């Protein structure tokens, strides 16, 4: 009995310490969400963990205010203004599936363009992790009529989709210090939310140079639109190889070479 009291006493001693810690976390959590989203605290806890978070306009999130086509909402995230970024996470918190895409920039700019499906009006956010362990967060609200995640993609509605799956078209635009890569990969990107159609999506893409050196890496989730069109700014190279898989293990591999097709020159 005595021992138990003593233990409780010790716990009481510890209490102020806990209070301080939780107060500190609360102080960060209470930083006002500029988008006033009801889901922000959950997103923060589930996706960003205990790391410090600041809302930061240096992370640019380009997207339309209104989704004209809720199956294909264009988004571009650019955190280059932060300097070095080790991870870039994109999420749409009022979507049934929150995580959209993750990038490990490696040698690329922390910039990625793509399209997403939205089920209803939702914040589209990007969180960029800097080497000091801080997440820099920005976003914007995309209004939408809805249905993007629970409508079968046209790709899978088309009986022919399987014959073109994994097909890649792409092009390199050399700049002074960077190479812009744009590519489209044929894939239905099914969310698994449509009755009778399982989740079926590309989940990883590695971008390599001619020597096999990794330039950048993407992890894609269900909300990325079908037949993903990806934009990246990579270090200057004359060719880039994309290697990836979907969640069924189907391989994706193609080499995009600078210049245009011979016949079109």
């Amino acid at each position: 009995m005595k021992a138990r009291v003593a233990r409780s006493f010790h716990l009481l001693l510890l209490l102020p310490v806990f209070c301080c810690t939780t107060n500190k976390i609360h102080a960060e959590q209470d930083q006002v969400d500029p988008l006033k989203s009801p889901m922000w605290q959950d997103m923060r806890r589930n996706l960003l963990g205990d790391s410090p978070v600041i809302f930061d306009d240096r992370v640019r999130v380009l997207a339309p205010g209104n989704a004209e086509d809720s199956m294909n909402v264009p988004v571009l995230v650019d955190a280059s203004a932060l300097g070095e970024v080790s991870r870039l996470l994109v999420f749409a918190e009022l979507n049934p599936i929150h995580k959209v895409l993750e990038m490990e920039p490696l040698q690329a700019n922390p910039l990625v363009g793509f399209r997403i499906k939205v089920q209803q009006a939702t914040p589209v956010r990007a969180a960029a992790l800097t080497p000091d362990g801080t997440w820099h967060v920005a976003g914007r609200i995309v209004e939408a009529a809805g249905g993007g995640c629970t409508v079968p993609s046209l790709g899978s509605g088309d009986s022919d989709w399987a014959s073109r799956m994994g097909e890649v078209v792409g092009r390199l635009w050399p700049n002074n210090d960077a190479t812009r890569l744009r590519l489209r990969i044929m894939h239905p990107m099914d969310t698994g939310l449509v009755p009778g159609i399982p989740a079926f999506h590309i989940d990883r893409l590695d971008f390599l140079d001619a020597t096999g050196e990794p330039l950048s890496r993407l992890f894609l989730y269900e909300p990325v639109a079908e037949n993903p069109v990806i934009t990246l700014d990579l270090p200057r190279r004359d060719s880039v190889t994309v290697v990836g898989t979907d969640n069924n293990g189907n391989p994706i591999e193609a080499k995009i070479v600078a210049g245009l097709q011979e016949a079109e020159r």
Partner: protein
Amino acid sequence: MTLAQGFSSILIALAIVTSAWGGKDYGLKPVEIAPNTYVLLGVNEHFNFRNGGNIVNTGFIVTQAGVVVIDSGPSRLYGEQLRAAIGKVTDKPILKLFNTHLHPDHVLGNQAFEEVPIAALAGTIEGMRQQGESFNDAMYRLAGAWMAGTRVVLPTETVQPGSLEIGGHHLQLIEMKGHSHADLMILDQTTGVLFAADMVFHGRTPTTPHADPNHWLQALQRVAKLDFKLLVPGHGSVIEGPQAIEQTRDYLQWLIAHLTRAAEEGMSMAEVLQPDAPPEISALAVFHQEYQRSVSHLYPAIEAKVLSRGRVVRE
């Protein structure tokens, strides 16, 4: 019946009609633009809860035999109020309603004309069959309570392009495509009025949800050669001469050139949402909204063409 009784029964009748309309009034005022030819002008805005979807021009021709109506507006309510407005101009029966193309702001008033032959091009009828209900849903979200009780009523007659004489008016029914896959224009050769529908916009940014801009531009060359005195655009004010045709052409040419150049430069779709447009383009009503919608409609195909010219080796 005394005068007072008569007056009060009119008031009661009016009260019944307005209460059935839930107090909502589009304020439709037919404007006589040519002999026996009337237009009801919508506002140069996007759909919203205030305008109830009345962003569109409808019209009617009072012939000796009866009334020909061109488009029925965005809702059941609009259709009913359009009929009431026609009834104030003439006692003649309504002979026929034309639907110029499938878009909801032009056809969702059909419900008020259900006992009348409703005519449209075959492609329009098929488009309405496939997409009418989703348009109706979308309109409810955009225009709100004005849409109450609206359902899709499909046309009952297929238009055969060519000449049609009705009650002394010689109408040319002209099939075009470009704004949608089937666009009907009606040229009244008796008055010289061209109901150009959404092939021509005036002072308002053209919309492109089902557009093929290249077909549209080709078609506009044909429109410019038509012998008309007065042009009624689908949206915007009535105009003499070719100015609205040129404006529509200039916008489409700018739009295609701008999006193509952006795709050729390797721009991501989200990067083209904020355009640098020349002042005569950006001055068009609802430019920013319609431009962003057009990016969504048109950029994927333009970009696909650009990307497919890149060199890819499948390993």
